[in-house]
């Protein structure tokens, strides 16, 4: 179940009356205004919306990278606004996997070493780490590029390494911020296929921000971010209904 009216119960992700303002110079920018969202475990949601509408901001808030101006975000029962510093970092390591548009791999580490990074924060033994890393790389089809450095990989391959890094510690939620934005169609489709598979086979809860209607089609639910709140859309990408309409 995905709801944007704030009426869900016992959801994996529960966002209530979320406000986010940025202050730039003297003026205040209202990015998110009274946003509500309920997402159950295993849902695959795509967010669309014009550039600057606050999609990245929303993902960052869900991932605990940023703090709300007002409102609450509960993920798996934890109110993340109440976590701080060390605890938040540990929470993120356990629950969240990030995939960025620009891959953000560490250039001096091989694919294997990049994927291994999140596991270094756990108590896993070296051989267990190896096993997990190899499994993750196999899932994205890069077993044969394991010891390559990012500069020796294509953009699509780099993004696949980034996906392996995001899933290697088996997080609850995957946050993908325009993961295909910098890729050609074919590579982008490969990435989307992997993300779909993570949803289907591994029941990951996935939030995908994208500008691409084709990409959005893969998701179970398409939400439109507009003027600081979420609207549910039809499969063709057009806004199907507004939260107010649902009440009737």
């Amino acid at each position, binding site marked *: 179940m995905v709801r944007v009216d704030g009426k869900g119960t016992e959801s994996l992700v529960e966002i209530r009356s979320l406000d986010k303002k940025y202050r730039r110079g003297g003026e205040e920018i209202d990015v998110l205004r009274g946003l509500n969202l309920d997402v159950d475990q295993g849902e695959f949601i795509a967010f669309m919306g014009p550039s600057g509408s606050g999609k990245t901001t929303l993902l960052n808030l869900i991932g605990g*990278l940023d703090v709300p101006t007002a409102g609450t975000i509960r993920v798996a029962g934890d109110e993340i606004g109440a976590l701080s510093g060390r605890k938040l970092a*540990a929470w993120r390591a356990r629950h969240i996997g990030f995939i960025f548009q620009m891959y*953000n791999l560490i250039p001096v580490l091989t694919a294997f070493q990049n994927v291994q990074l999140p596991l*270094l*924060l756990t108590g896993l033994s070296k051989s267990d780490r190896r096993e997990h890393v190899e499994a993750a790389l196999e899932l994205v089809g890069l077993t044969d590029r394991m010891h390559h450095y990012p500069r020796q990989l294509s953009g699509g391959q780099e993004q696949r390494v980034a996906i392996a890094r995001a899933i290697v510690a088996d997080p609850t939620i995957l946050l993908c911020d325009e993961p295909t934005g910098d890729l050609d169609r074919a590579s982008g489709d490969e990435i989307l296929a992997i993300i779909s598979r993570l949803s289907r086979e591994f029941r990951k809860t996935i939030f995908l921000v994208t500008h691409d209607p084709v990409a959005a089609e893969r998701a179970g639910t398409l939400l439109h971010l507009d003027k600081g709140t979420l609207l549910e859309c039809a499969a063709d990408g057009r806004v199907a209904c507004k939260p107010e309409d649902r009440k009737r």
Partner: protein
Amino acid sequence: MKFLHLVLVNLRRKKTRTALTIGSFTVALFLFGILATIKSALGSGVDVAGADRLVVRNRVSLIQPLPIAYRDQILRLPHVEEATFATWFGGYYQDMKNFFPNFAIDVPNWRRVYPEYKFSDEEWRAFAEDREGCVISPPLAKRFGWKIGDRIPLEATIWAGTWELNVRAIYETDRRELTSPELWFHYEYLDERRSFWKGFVGWYTVKIDDPGNAVEAAEAIDDRFANSPFETKTETEKAFAAGFANQIGNIRLLILSIGSVVFFTLLLVTGNAMASAVRERTGELAVLKTIGMNDLTVLSLVMAEAIAVAAVGGGAGLVLAKLFTLRGDPTGGMLANFYLSPRNLALGFALALAAGAAAGILPALGAMRLRIVDALRRV
């Protein structure tokens, strides 16, 4: 420790910068090692001085002499057990740059005041019986390859001419700080041949019954010769050696200043290198935080990098300094005890690590405080 690999590969990404930073540590710690060695060599007399010995010298200055007749009078004073004397000769062998300390000693009483120098009875007798005989230290013997029986010409600097001396004894000691290159010969021979200051000596060394009586004994000696044409100044051997070292006090100050400037520069160079490293890797640091690395680990990662540079560079500098000092006194006698002690090595290493930590702390704090969202937005 699991992140050691990341620290190392990070250091390798800008090889030139890392090499230069490591190099500055190497140069700085090499310099530290040499300066520390010079400093302790200058002050080494202070550490070997006996607590139960007093040195009596001319009140005016060390280079003014005292009458030889003072010995008998000193011996009659309270707490005094033994007294002997010596005079600086200041000769050199063949060339001025071969300088080493050499002086004429009071052969009959010398050993009773300075028991720490060991001789075979046979060699000492041979020396005592040869008016032109001399004693040399093992380092001096080694330096010029001199053996017992060799005849050595010393060029005088205070008095005139070439003075030929026969090597009759080489002393031994189990205290390495006593083994500087030096030569002693008969005061009698000096006094007979020299043209002026006949009947005068450079200083007296007095052995007293108990170190606790040093002040009393020293006052008694100075009172005895007060208002004479040759007033004395008596102090413990330790104070005397310290005073000797203080004459070169400005050199020590100079050493300290050089050292401080070098360390300050090191801080700037390393701090700047680390700051650039952190700035270049803002995005990567944000990613590490995103995957759940906590602030403290991020801080340690940057600190570890700075400290690794300090440890490698500083360690190399100290090893080079140690190798340099192993070749012995480069001045040929002025810094007899040219030795880089383990204590100074440890001190240098600790200083290097501290400098690394100090240089790393601001960039590390910056990395720690980095807000992920801001950093990612910049990528």
